[in-house]
Structures are given as C-alpha cells and as structure tokens.
C-alpha cells in the first residue's frame, strides 16, 4: 500500500475553492486587448518616428482609432470584473508604488492622450466633417516635424509600458507559481506585438507596410517561442511548486490546449504559412494573421486560468 497524504478543508469559499478561479473571462480579454493595443502603439509610433506619416495611406492613421476602440472595450471588460464597481474612482485618488494595478491605472490615463495626439496628426474624414476644427490642430502638428516624431516616441514608450505591465500584473504574484516568472512581461509584450503586427497586416493599405509587418510578425513569433523555452527553463529549475506549475502546461491538465492552440495553431502554423508568404511561395491570406490573433487570446486565457490553478502545497506532516 502506498503512503497517502490527504488534505481536507471546510473552507469552500466561492471562486476560491476547490481551486482559485477569481479572475474569469474579463481579465484574459483585457490582457489580450491591452497587449494588442500596446503592440499597435509601438508599430504606429515607429511609423511616425520614421516619417512614414508622409505617405497618405500609412497605417499609423487608422491604428490609433482602432486602438482607442479596442482599449476601451478591454477597460470595459476590466470594469465588469470589479466586484465593487461604484468605488472604481478610488484608483485615481492614490498611487501605490508597489501595485502593478495602480501603475496600470495611471499608464492607461497617459495612453489615451498619446493615442489622441496620434489621431490628430491626420484625423479621419468622418471626424473632420463633424469637427472641422480638427484640421487646424492637424496643420499645427504637421508644421512641426519634431512634434510628430515625439508623438511617435511617446506612443512607443507608452505602448511598451502598457504591454509590459499586463505581464508584470501577474508575475508579481508569488502566490501563483506559474505567473511568478519575471519573463512573463516579455512574453506578453512580444505576444502583443505579434498580434498587433498580424492585425495591422490584415488591414494595412500600404503594400510596403503590409509586407514589413508580416516579416516582423515572423520575428515576433520566433522570439515568443524562445521566451516560452526560457520561462519553462526557469520554472523547471526552480522549487517544486514552480516545477509542478510548468508541468500543468507541458504535460498536465492544460497541456492539450497549450500545445494545440497556443503553440500549434497560435505560433507554429501561422509562422510556417507566413514564412512561405514572405518568401513568395504562397500568397498572403488572412489565415495566418487570424490564427496569430486567436492564439494570442487563447494564450491569455491559458496563462490566467492555469496560473490561478497553480499553487503552493499546504501540507506539513513529515
């Protein structure tokens, strides 16, 4: 007969027992949209910085509009997650240095002006038709090329902060071994960049940009694979709860969805299709970018869910 270890509790608090499930769909949806907007800000910022806004069909004009919509949807999901909604304003009466969520709340406040400044460089026609004064602002900004460059820099920096914080938010939780890797922000930032490159590639009217982003996306996907390897190396060479957390994804309950959807359909398959496409073996289709975007969303769901499931083991008898 094998040695047994039985641990029973009478606690049974909702969403805490039998395993932590406090954060539901709202958090991964927000982390995904926040990460993708972060990537789009970096891409648009780079295009502005490198003077591509002189091209009339530059992607940097539609990116900030889409970003405002997607980020607002993400923040709405985050709001839906709050259990004490009427007190949400409390986020903005303080700054808590050690709380990534406090950092995030203030970063989001800074992100919107940067996106609006980007929109103002060349507002869409439906905007100027309604508010003709926008044309004046646009002219003023475009009269000062250094201002456009700086708006680009601001978008890149804030995009990086936004993308990084979505990972730091989880990685500071020592209580959840799977999240407790300081590489998580790199994973989320690269994954955000990858989804953003895929998204912009889908809608870019400018041929050069479309091709550039497909190539960049291949780079991001390869980096993402390396980051995964390094995260697992870190977890597997750490303490037992961390090793067990890594095995949740590698061979445990979350392995099928991780290998099939995150790695297979989200990274490997689109990478192969896109590598063939940029080498002109096959033509560009929407398949690869859509897989990348869906894979990025599933990645957030898997990390949030498996991370909450990973835990320390409260046994003491020897």
């Amino acid at each position: 007969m094998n040695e047994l270890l039985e641990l029973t509790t009478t606690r049974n608090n909702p969403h805490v027992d039998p395993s932590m499930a406090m954060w539901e769909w709202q958090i991964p949806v927000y982390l995904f949209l926040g990460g993708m907007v972060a990537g789009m800000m970096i891409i648009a910022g780079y295009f502005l910085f490198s003077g591509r806004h002189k091209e009339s069909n530059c992607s940097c004009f539609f990116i900030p509009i889409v970003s405002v919509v997607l980020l607002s949807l993400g923040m709405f999901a985050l709001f839906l997650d709050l259990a004490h909604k009427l007190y949400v304003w409390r986020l903005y009466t303080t700054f808590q240095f050690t709380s990534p969520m406090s950092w995030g709340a203030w970063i989001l406040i800074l992100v919107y002006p940067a996106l609006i400044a980007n929109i103002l460089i060349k507002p869409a026609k439906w905007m100027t038709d309604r508010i003709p004064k926008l044309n004046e602002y646009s002219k003023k900004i475009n009269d000062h090329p250094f201002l456009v460059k700086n708006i680009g820099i601001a978008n890149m920096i804030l995009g990086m902060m936004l993308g990084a914080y979505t990972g730091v938010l989880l990685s500071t939780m020592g209580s959840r071994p799977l999240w407790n890797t300081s590489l998580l922000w790199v994973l989320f930032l690269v994954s955000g960049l990858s989804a953003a490159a895929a998204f912009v590639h889908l809608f870019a009217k400018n041929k050069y940009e479309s091709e550039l982003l497909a190539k960049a996306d291949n780079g991001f996907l390869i980096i993402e694979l390396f980051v995964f390897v390094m995260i697992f190396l870190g977890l597997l060479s750490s303490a037992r709860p961390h090793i067990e957390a890594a095995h949740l994804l590698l061979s445990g309950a979350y392995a099928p969805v991780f290998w099939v959807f995150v790695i297979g359909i989200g990274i490997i398959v689109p990478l192969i299709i896109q590598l063939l496409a940029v080498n002109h073996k096959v033509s560009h289709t929407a398949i690869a970018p859509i897989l990348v975007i869906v894979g990025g969303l599933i990645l957030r769901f898997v990390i949030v869910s498996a991370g909450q499931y990973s835990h320390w083991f409260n046994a003491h008898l020897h």
Partner: protein
Amino acid sequence: MPRYGMVIDTRKCVGCQDCVIACKTENNIPEGYNRDWIVTEAKGKFPDIQLEIRTERCNHCSETPCVSCCPTGASHIHDVGGVVLVEHNMCIGCKACVEACPYDARFIHPDGYADKCTFCIHRVEKGQKPACVEVCPTYCMYFGDLDDPNSEVSKLLQSRKWHINLPDAGTQPNIFYLV
C-alpha cells in the same frame, strides 16, 4: 508596538468548528463564506498514520503581498498589532489581493469588497480575545503579542515545537501551529 499573533495547539484541536461558527456570528459572515476553517491533514501508510487538525485563517503575515498589490491602499496594515485589514469603502473589488495570498485566505464578500479575518480587532482593542479564541472548547488557541517575550504566545513558542503554514512562500505568517 505589539505584533499580534496566534498560537494553535494542533494536539488539542479536534476540528469541532466552534471557532468557525463564532467568527460567522461575531462578524456577520454571509452563508457560504468563511473567514476561518478547519484543515485536516492525514499522512502515512496504514496502520502508521499521522493526523493533524488545525484551524486556519488569514496569517496576518509580516511580509504582505496582499497589501503591496492593492491599487487603492484599501488593503493595509493596521496601526495596532500589525494586523492586516481591508478598508471596505476603499476597495474596488479587483481581486488582486485574493490572488496574491498564497493561503487563499481572502474572498470577495457578496457586497463587493475583499474580506478576511481581522483578528477581531474590534474586540481586541477593547481588551477582549478574538471570538474564535474565546469560544474554543479545548483551549487550543492562544492570542497575544509575539514581540513580548513574557506573553503566553511567546512562551509557548519557546517551549514547544511548532510549524508555520507555507514557510517557503516567504510571507512570514504570524500564526503558529504547535505539534
């Protein structure tokens, strides 16, 4: 300044749940939620089995991930005794503190705020014991100042063998289990 803590004698605890009921009554905890609970741990190979029964709650740790992750400052360390508390009308219900606790000691109250054991600070500040300690029929729970070498809890820790929960999580809990 005192550092409040608890010492729980696992050799006396029978898991009767009087502490659980006392807490629910004293603090008006809604049905289906618990600020304290009983854990039973059995280990071994028949017939050589070890059993430990212990009453658990927030450990009022000295290193507090639940406080440092709070975006509003609602989760805080009380001026008296280093007790970890939640200011209900500052809490936005983001659940970060619930996730940050390696003991899973917190929950979201049906009214929306994060909730957990307060060491019955409202009683302690009036010179009374926490409700769970007060009612324990086997006298297995002790409450007091861990920084006072002459307190009952300090003396017990000096004279008996004990363990803390999840020492590897590094939060320096202030609840000790005598073995």
